[in-house]
Structures are given as structure tokens and as C-alpha cells.
């Protein structure tokens, strides 16, 4: 019963996303046509950027992030054998009086609560910085999303209806349309690192401006944690940059359409760079300041850099955390999981057959859906990690960043460089990657720890070999 319902819900959500991708494409192409007719040919990018900003950032990311506030609680309840939030009701809509709707109305209740709560500013706080900090946390994560390619670039004429509209506007539908706010940004990943580094200002400023010792501790923790992970974050992707020969996310995605071992596997980043994937995921996880790296907001130690914040200012910190999750998942998908390409090796010809059956636009819809599914799985994985691992102690976080991730990232760069030099077809790199993955999975599945001898002696049990004797009291 519930299994059937859940399957139906999942299929329904996927169908909705499929339609949404099409709508996003259509709106981008339409606004492109409009701006071309207003500002002359060649200016289609203005309209497309506006459309993508609205659809991708405001609709997709913002809605997903708000839903994640509920999903986090609901998913965590499922991971912990609880029922989770189900008491908010949309009672004003007839027929929904006694429907919990999976707890989804809770995010509306949350929003109303955040917006109507008192917006408190401590008397001794630095008012300007105090107000600036949530925005500094909020802005960069959205800007970061600008370079994530959600769906491939297709000619506008492939989108149904656009050619006719373009003709009626007196322009031509020859421009390419892509679901990226800032498509084909050459500095790509460097931009991502720069913007990810900006996010620390929010936490540090909030900690400083609150004039609260605990907030300051949280802010300092956030700042030093970010610094210790920034380098590993950058270095862990250098291997991918070398393998793909580009910094641009679209090109990196396209570079993953190769075949490994004659079509046995797609040339995804995770197969070429499994170590780089682990390092980047760990470092990016630390950047999002979430468990197990949530020392900056460790509720049980220092309440966190936002301890003095309330109302929507606190809500901005919270939402930006969830947006960071979405953006991080998108980045990892684009760089390591083949981006928007279907999860089969191109040698199998699945994408080509879809393109010949449904046309370029149909393939783009499937690819956009694939990207969203991969992103959703990564988001879920982050929540899984959050609820499986305890918070790492503060010095252990620093140790992990400086002493483990950084040397491993450097070693990864050297080995990757040598293997690319030896074999430019990336097959040697792929072999190493598969060996590493197989070792990891093999050890995980097969290794059984030897049983430890019981260290507690019970009555009737022979005494363990004494290693020390004394006159005890």
C-alpha cells in the first residue's frame, strides 16, 4: 500500500520535473527571442540569463531548498525510525483537513513563523555588520549556482513553438539555449572556489557582529574550518581539471561522455578520480558547515555564529545552508557524475536512440531530468551522512583538513599527472580508479574485524594474564 503510494509519488515528481525542464527551456528561449527583438540580434543572452535566473535560482533552487527544510526533518525521521513532522494541515483547502501530506505544509508554517517573528538585534551589536552577515551568507551560494549546467545547450529552433514566435517577433531562432545562468564561463571552477570562499564572510561577520562570546567562538570556528578546507577543496579538483583539460563545467560534462574499457563504463569523474571525488566531497561538506563538520554551529557546545539571530535573518542562514547543499550536489554531479548525461556508457547508444526518437529537445528533457535525479540522490546522500556520523571534534576537523585531505590531494595530483602523461587516452587513469573503487568496495563488504578478547573479567572466568600487580585498595 505505502510502497505503491510512494512509488506513485516518486514517479509523479519525476514527471513534474520532466515537464518543468521543458518549461524552463521554453521560457529561456522565449525571453531570448524577446530580448533579441528589443536589443537586436546577438543579445539573446540577456533574456536567457533573466529567465534562467528566475527559473533555476528562484524557482528550482529556492523551492528545493525550502522543501529541504521539511525533507531534512522527514528524512531524518525515517532514518531514525520515527514518524516525523505530520501535524501541519492545509485545513483551509476543503478535503485536506485531515491530510498530513507527508509533512510538506510544515515548510509553509516555517516560512510564516520566520517572517512574523520578532527581528531582534542585540543592543551592543554592530548593527551594520549584523544586518550584512545574513546577506553575505545568502548571496554567494546563489551566485555559485550560476555556473552549474543543468541541461545541455540546444538550438532554440529545436524547442517547439519558438521558431514561430521568433518569426512573429521578427527575429530568427538560431541562438543556442542552455539551462545555465552563466553558460560557458571560461574560469568555471575557479569562479566556484572564489564564491565558495566568500561564504565564510557571512559566518565570521555574524559571529563578530553579534557581540556574543559563543557567537564569536562559532564564527572563529567557521573561519578556521573554511580556511583549512579551502585548499583541499581546490586541489582535489586539479586532477579532474587535468583529466578533462578544462575549467569550464560544460566542457567537463562533455568530456565525461567518453567510454572507458571499450564501452564498459562511462568516463565519469568518479571512475577516473575516485580519490578526488572523496576528497572534494569531504571538503565541500565541510564548506557547507553541516554534520559531521558542524562545529561552527555545534548546538551542544557553542550554539553557533547565529545564536543572536532570530526571525528571517536566522532563516537566511538556514536557507543558505540548504542552498549550499543543492549547489554542492550540482557541482559534484557536473564534475564527477557525468553531469546531465544518462548513466549509461555512450557506446551503448541510448542517448543517440532517444535523440533520433524524440528529437534534440526530447533528449535535452531526459538529460535535464537525469541531472536533477543525480542531484537529488547526492542531496539525499548528504542527509544520510549527516544522520550517520557524529560531529567531529574541532581539532580533528583541522587534522583531517591539513594532515589528511591536503597530502592526499597533492598525491592525487601527482599520480593523475603521471598517468595522464603516460596514457593520454585516460585508460590508465581509469584502471587505477577502478582498482581504487574495487578495493574500497571490497574492503567495505568483505572485511570482518577479528573478535576482540573480552577485557572485563567475570566471576568464574579465568583471570587474564596480569601485566601489573599491586596492593590495591
Amino acid at each position, binding site marked *: 500500500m505505502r510502497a505503491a503510494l510512494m512509488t506513485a509519488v516518486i514517479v509523479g515528481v519525476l514527471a513534474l520535473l520532466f515537464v518543468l525542464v521543458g518549461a524552463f527551456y521554453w521560457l529561456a528561449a522565449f525571453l531570448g527571442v524577446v530580448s533579441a527583438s528589443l536589443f537586436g540580434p546577438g543579445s539573446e543572452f540577456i533574456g536567457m540569463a533573466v529567465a534562467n535566473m528566475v527559473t533555476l535560482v528562484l524557482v528550482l533552487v529556492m523551492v528545493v531548498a525550502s522543501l529541504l527544510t521539511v525533507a531534512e526533518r522527514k528524512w531524518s525521521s525515517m532514518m531514525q525510525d520515527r514518524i516525523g513532522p505530520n501535524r501541519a494541515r492545509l485545513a483551509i483547502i476543503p478535503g485536506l483537513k485531515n491530510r498530513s501530506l507527508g509533512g510538506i505544509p510544515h515548510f509553509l508554517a516555517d516560512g510564516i513563523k520566520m517572517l512574523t517573528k520578532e527581528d531582534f538585534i542585540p543592543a551592543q551589536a554592530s548593527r551594520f555588520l549584523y544586518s550584512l552577515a545574513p546577506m553575505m551568507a545568502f548571496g554567494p551560494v546563489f551566485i555559485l549556482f550560476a555556473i552549474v549546467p543543468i541541461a545541455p545547450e540546444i538550438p532554440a529552433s529545436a524547442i517547439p513553438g519558438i521558431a514561430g514566435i521568433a518569426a512573429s517577433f521578427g527575429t530568427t531562432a538560431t541562438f543556442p539555449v542552455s539551462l545555465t545562468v552563466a553558460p560557458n564561463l571560461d574560469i568555471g571552477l575557479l569562479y566556484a572556489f572564489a564564491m565558495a570562499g566568500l561564504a565564510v564572510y557571512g559566518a565570521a561577520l555574524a559571529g563578530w557582529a553579534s557581540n556574543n562570546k559563543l557567537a564569536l567562538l562559532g564564527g572563529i570556528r567557521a573561519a578556521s574550518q573554511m580556511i583549512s578546507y579551502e585548499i583541499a577543496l581546490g586541489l582535489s579538483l586539479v586532477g579532474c581539471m587535468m583529466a578533462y583539460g578544462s575549467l569550464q563545467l560544460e566542457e567537463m560534462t562533455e568530456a565525461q561522455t567518453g567510454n572507458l574499457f571499450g564501452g564498459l563504463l562511462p568516463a565519469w569523474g568518479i571512475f577516473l578520480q575516485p580519490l578526488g571525488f572523496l576528497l572534494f566531497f569531504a571538503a565541500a561538506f565541510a564548506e557547507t558547515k553541516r554534520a559531521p563538520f558542524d562545529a561552527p554551529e555545534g548546538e551542544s557546545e557553542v550554539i553557533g555564529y547565529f545564536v543572536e539571530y532570530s526571525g528571517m535573518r536566522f532563516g537566511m542562514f538556514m536557507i543558505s545552508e540548504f542552498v549550499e547543499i543543492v549547489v554542492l550536489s550540482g557541482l559534484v554531479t557536473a564534475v564527477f557524475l557525468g553531469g546531465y548525461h544518462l548513466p549509461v556508457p555512450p557506446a551503448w547508444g541510448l542517448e543517440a536512440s532517444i535523440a533520433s526518437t524524440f528529437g534534440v529537445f526530447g533528449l535535452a528533457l531526459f538529460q535535464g531530468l537525469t541531472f536533477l535525479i543525480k542531484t537529488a540522490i547526492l542531496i539525499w546522500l548528504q542527509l544520510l551522512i549527516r544522520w550517520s556520523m557524529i560531529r567531529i571534534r574541532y581539532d580533528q576537523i583541522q587534522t583531517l583538513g591539513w594532515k589528511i585531505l591536503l597530502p592526499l590531494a597533492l598525491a592525487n595530483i601527482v599520480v593523475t599527472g603521471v598517468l595522464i602523461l603516460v596514457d593520454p587516452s585516460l585508460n590508465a587513469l581509469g584502471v587505477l580508479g577502478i582498482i581504487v573503487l574495487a578495493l574500497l568496495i571490497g574492503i567495505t563488504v568483505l572485511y570482518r574485524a577479528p573478535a576482540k578478547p573480552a577485557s572485563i573479567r567475570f566471576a568464574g572466568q579465568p583471570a587474564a594474564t596480569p601485566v601489573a600487580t599491586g*596492593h590495591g585498595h
Partner: protein
Amino acid sequence: MAHDPKHEPREFHVEEDKGLTWFERLYVPAIIRGLAVTARHFFGNLFGDRDTNPDVVYRKGTLGNAVSTVQYPEEKIPYPVGYRGLHRLVPREDGKPRCVACYMCATVCPAQCIYIEAGEYSDDPIEKYPTRFVIDELRCVVCGLCVEACPKDAIRMDTFTHTPPEYSREGFIYPVERLLKGPAVAYPSDPWVKRESSAQPHQHVPFHGLAEHSTEPVPPKPKHPVGTVHPTQPRFQESDFQKPVALPRQK
């Protein structure tokens, strides 16, 4: 140091800290195993049906759903026999309370939450009855001493419900009208049963067939399983005790 015969040397075992094994130092496989455990719970609870049976403590749903939460207002775990719930006054067969206004419960009550005013029946020179019998359920500590003290089995706490919520403190003051619930109860020893007329004291004439006065062997009581409600136990809802809409305020 001289050996003290009173204190034999005690052996104690010190285990050397061998540090982490190579598997533990790898760290990532252990994390993946932990993630697998969490994911198993997630998918079991996502796709499996929840076991909503409140009668068992160890609830196991289908497909590995392990949620054991009881959604309280909708699902209720049955209380054990002897559970002390909301009070009720036991009626006799003519609908009046069995209470004879002896003040035993009000006297024994440690919270002093029972207030009684006694009255006399105009046609009965012996029996008293409570003109007012008021329990302040907010003061009640649910100790059950009133039930123990009552000589007439007139007050019971066998309703198996809680005090329903109210919007005012006055709502928790229960007069007779709200307390008098359940089926009538009669005993052979009840004076109003023994007398033909409630106006006259009764000559002791045994009722035929009543166990107290019969010479026939008493049949054994039918047993019912432990943990279930007795078949003769009246069942109540909280709504049975909610304040009536137009109840006159007592001064």
C-alpha cells in the same frame, strides 16, 4: 613496603591500547557501512507500512518499517487493569448516585479536591445524599484513596480516560452531573435494595437467589485474559466527560 595480610595483593588487568587497526584507520569503509545501515532504515520506513496496532509494544511494519511511534490521539495503547483514570460517580438503579454523603472520600483526599454537601431525602429517615458533590480535577493527584475509602462503591476511577482539556479553570470543576456516568450498580447489601420501601427501615429478609444469602454453590467467575478490559467494564471516551455547553454555573 611491608606486606599487609589484611589486604591481599589484587590482580588487575591492564589492556594495552593498541590504537586503531588498519581497517579503522581507513575510515571510509566504516563510514560506508554506517551509511548502509542508515539507508536500510530509510528505505524500510519509506516504502513499508507502519504497524498501527497499539496492543503490541514491539511493532513491526511491512517491508522493514520499524517505526514504533503511537500517534496518540488517533491510536491509543490500552491501559492496564487497575489504571486510575478520571473519576466517576456510580449510579444506582434509580439513576441517583450511590453516594451517601459520608465524607469519607473528602476526608481522606490528600489534595482536598472533593467537596460534598449532604442532604436528606424527604421520604427517607436514614439515607443521606449529596446535594453537591464537586471534584476539582486540577487539584486531584489521582492517588485513588477516595475509591479505597468509599464504603458504598460510589466513586470509581475506572473510566480509563484522562481529564479532557478545558479553556478555563472552572471547566475542571466537576459537579455531579458530569461525574455520574456508567451503568447502574446494585449490591444485595444495599439498604435501598433490602427495604421494600425506602421510607421504612427493613426487616432482614434475604433475597432469593442472591449469592450473599444463597446456600447454592457460587459459580466461578468467568476468567478474562490479563491485559484486556473486563467485558462488564463500561467504556468511556474523553468526550463523555467534557463540559456540557449550557451547564449552569454553580455558586
